[in-house]
């Protein structure tokens, strides 16, 4: 594999590209899946992908294929030449500068198939015995192994080997003719060293789903609080992370344009991207730099955008040391139950099913698998409940962050309370 990546880079420079980049990845995917509570599928996928990027006369293109033969490489290089030549010059197109050669290793090398069988069977048994009304529609355990070589014509030479397990669960409860909303959770795991029910809040969500076969609407339309659970927090952070990324920043349509160093959220919110720390992360950025754990928001102040090399050159701002994702929200000091106890009237939201917020951040959507809170207590599961507000204002109106957090392996999130939400 190593040799082929070098051959690909050589072929690109010989073809005439002034700057070139190659990423070659060998991957193996092992999957054990259960449907409707029974093991149903054992899968093994093998793949090899090679991504080529070339710049000539400031014109850039990229081509990716999944064949590592000399004939396929030759065709891909010729194809890339046409793709890049057909583009338009942009001086912002570039590749990473020379850096020391490095190798990054994380996670297991080979899957433990016995553990995959045992842990998934254990979960299915737990679901059957503890939650007889729960229908486990899909339960999947995977092991993914990736070995990548990243080279560019400036002399970047990185190798990354990563192995990680994954868990994905989707379930519904049915009691007679009463049906719950579906619910799901998932995690990236370094090892299968504990029951899957104890990962990613799975057991709590399974129990709650069995409670949610009988639901009620909120008593009336009101303005109140959202207690955002770890399962749902990414829905409410996505507006911020998307709007500090390339396209809205380059187009200057982002609410956060020019806000570096300014307050963009409540002082209670601190948000990092930690691709190196989390097992579900990555070692090399898409541009060809070693990924670094990065603080995006510190006590409400925007500390880093999520700009790529291109975005940084286009805007004149600083390139982020992360490609994003792997978000970690700093824990607060308030116990979760005390956080809920603060809420006079609101919704404990576990899943947000809503339209994409507009550029202003306005949102509305359904609170799924969620509960009505009144007088500091969780009262009953909800149905047909719409929540609406503005994403930027919601982040500014965070009053409390819980002490407890859930580690999903690809993110770590607490419970968060925000005020001023329309609920109907």
């Amino acid at each position, binding site marked *: 594999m190593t040799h082929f990546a070098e051959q690909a880079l050589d072929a690109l420079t010989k073809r005439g590209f002034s700057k070139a980049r190659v990423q070659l990845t060998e991957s193996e*995917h092992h*999957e054990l899946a259960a*449907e*409707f509570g029974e093991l*149903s*599928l*054992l*899968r*093994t*996928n*093998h*793949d090899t*992908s090679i991504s080529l990027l070339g710049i000539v006369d400031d014109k*850039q*293109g990229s*081509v*990716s294929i*999944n064949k590592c033969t000399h004939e396929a490489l030759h065709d891909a290089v010729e194809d890339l030449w046409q*793709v*890049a*030549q*057909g*583009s*338009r010059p942009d001086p*912002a197109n570039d590749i990473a500068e020379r850096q020391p050669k490095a190798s990054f290793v994380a996670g297991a090398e080979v899957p433990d198939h016995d553990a995959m*069988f045992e842990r998934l069977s254990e979960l299915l048994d737990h679901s059957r015995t503890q939650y007889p009304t729960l*229908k486990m*529609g*899909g339960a999947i355990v995977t092991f993914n192994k990736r070995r990548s070589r990243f080279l560019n014509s400036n002399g970047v030479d990185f190798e990354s080997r990563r192995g990680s397990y994954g868990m994905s669960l*989707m379930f*519904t*409860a*049915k009691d007679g*003719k009463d*049906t719950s*909303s*579906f619910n799901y959770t998932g995690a990236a795991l370094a090892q299968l060293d504990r029951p899957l029910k104890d990962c990613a809040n799975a057991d709590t969500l399974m129990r709650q789903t069995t409670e949610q076969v009988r639901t009620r609407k909120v008593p009336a*339309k009101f303005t109140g609080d959202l207690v955002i659970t770890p399962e749902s927090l990414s829905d409410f952070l996505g507006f911020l992370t998307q709007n500090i990324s390339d*396209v809205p920043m*380059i*187009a200057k*349509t982002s*609410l956060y344009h020019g806000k570096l160093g300014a307050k963009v959220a409540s002082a209670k919110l601190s948000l990092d991207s930690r691709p190196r720390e989390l097992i579900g992360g990555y070692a090399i950025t898409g541009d060809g730099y070693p990924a670094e754990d990065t603080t995006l928001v510190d006590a409400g102040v925007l500390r880093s955008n999520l700009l790529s090399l291109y975005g940084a050159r286009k805007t004149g701002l600083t390139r982020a040391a992360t490609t994003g994702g792997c978000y970690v929200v700093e824990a607060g000091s308030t116990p979760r139950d005390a956080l809920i106890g603060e809420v006079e009237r609101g919704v404990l939201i576990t899943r947000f*099913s*809503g*339209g*994409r917020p*507009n*550029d*202003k951040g306005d*949102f*509305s*959507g*359904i609170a799924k698998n969620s509960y009505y809170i009144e007088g500091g207590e969780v009262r009953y599961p909800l*149905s*047909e409940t*719409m929540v*609406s507000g503005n994403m930027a204002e919601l982040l500014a109106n965070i009053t409390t962050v819980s002490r407890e957090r859930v580690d999903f392996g690809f993110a770590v999130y607490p419970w968060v309370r925000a005020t001023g939400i*329309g609920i*109907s």
Partner: protein
Amino acid sequence: MSLRDENLAAYGNRMSRYTELRLQKNTNLRISLLNGDVVANAKSADSGISARVFHDGVWGFSSRAEIDGDAITKTIDEASRNAELLAKYAPRSEIELPPARTKKESDFATKKARFSQAQMIAFLQAIDARIAERYPDLKSRSVTLADLDMEKRLYTSEGSDGYSNTTRSLIVVNMVTTNAAGQPVELRQVFGGRGQFEDVFSSPAALDDEIDALHAHLMKKREAVAPRAGVHDVILDSELAGILAHEAIGHTTEADLVREGSVAGDFLDQLVASPLVTMVDYAHTRDGETLPVPVYIDDEGVESRDAVLIENGVLKSFMHNKESSSLFGVNPTGNARAYQFFDEPLIRMRNTAILPGNDKLEDMIASIEDGYYLMWPSNGQADSTSEFMFGVTLGYEIKNGKLGRAITDTTIAGVAFDMLKTVSMVSDEMSWSCAGMCGKKQIIPVGMGGPSIKCRIHIGGQ
């Protein structure tokens, strides 16, 4: 060599159990201009072989990127071993898969000379230049081309033999302006559909009228008012009726979701909608017209046929693969589809539509005293309870039977099997779209269609 010419039947003697052997190539093209700059210019091609083997009620699956004889043999053998291993560990109650043997070919590749990447970029630049010239009031604009070709060659141990090349070419135009408060206001529209670029788009100027209309809507949206939160009389225009058919009803009537507990399982042969509502998941053709995502043979080798889901308001049937059809005691409908060569077939919709009625759109609008005309969707999501939501990016007030001010982006929601009973008018025209990707473990292109319908629905807002 084209996938069409691969002799997969030659591997039939290695198939000792029920086996599907699928050779597949997905080719993606993406070009994006942001304010005139080329910010994406990428091609990708992913191809490989997969085998799926059924043994003692469980499945073994294997895939490889290589597609030579040795790799195909290894893939069949590994899928067989996986099935044997799983069956040894956890055999399931034996399910008899219904046999299927058919031979089908379909090819939606263009017969015209293919455009080069440079020609496509020039085409997009011409669209972009026309937008920049005619609408100087925009704060930002983008023009994006997204092409997908899915080429499949299938052979099953039962002798089914299929070749398909299903293509789609889309151009997405996005415009951003600012309102009086200086806040961004955005609107986007997707053009194109089934076919390759050369067959779908004739000239940049051919999109002028539709882009003019997009800009006119955006200018009205600058002055938009927030809708009033609550339940209102509305007209859902055809795009929204299509996503309603897909999300709200379609997903609940996929047999795997019925097995998982979807409420539709309790409603078979019952009235679930107004008698004005008939809904079908079409395999490939309606009234002689080839639909956006035509499927003639599915990835289990089953000849695809239409699935009538709701007929005159009564829930009639579900969409099936082989396994679910066996469990439900019905014939498979040919809904088993996989997105990539390394994916297993799942029950997926094809071309799902509410059928047109007899009303005129203008009469429908005139019939509403105080409500909304909702036109364009963004995303949507379904649920096992049939509770759905869609984002709405374009809509107008209706006051005293006339269209009024534009409304801001909002979300609509409801319980489908309740909401469909409120349908009181259905327009006599329908349209199709295939801009979306449906997500269900894998993503996959789907077609959606519908007329305009009048109903009562919950709108998010102030």
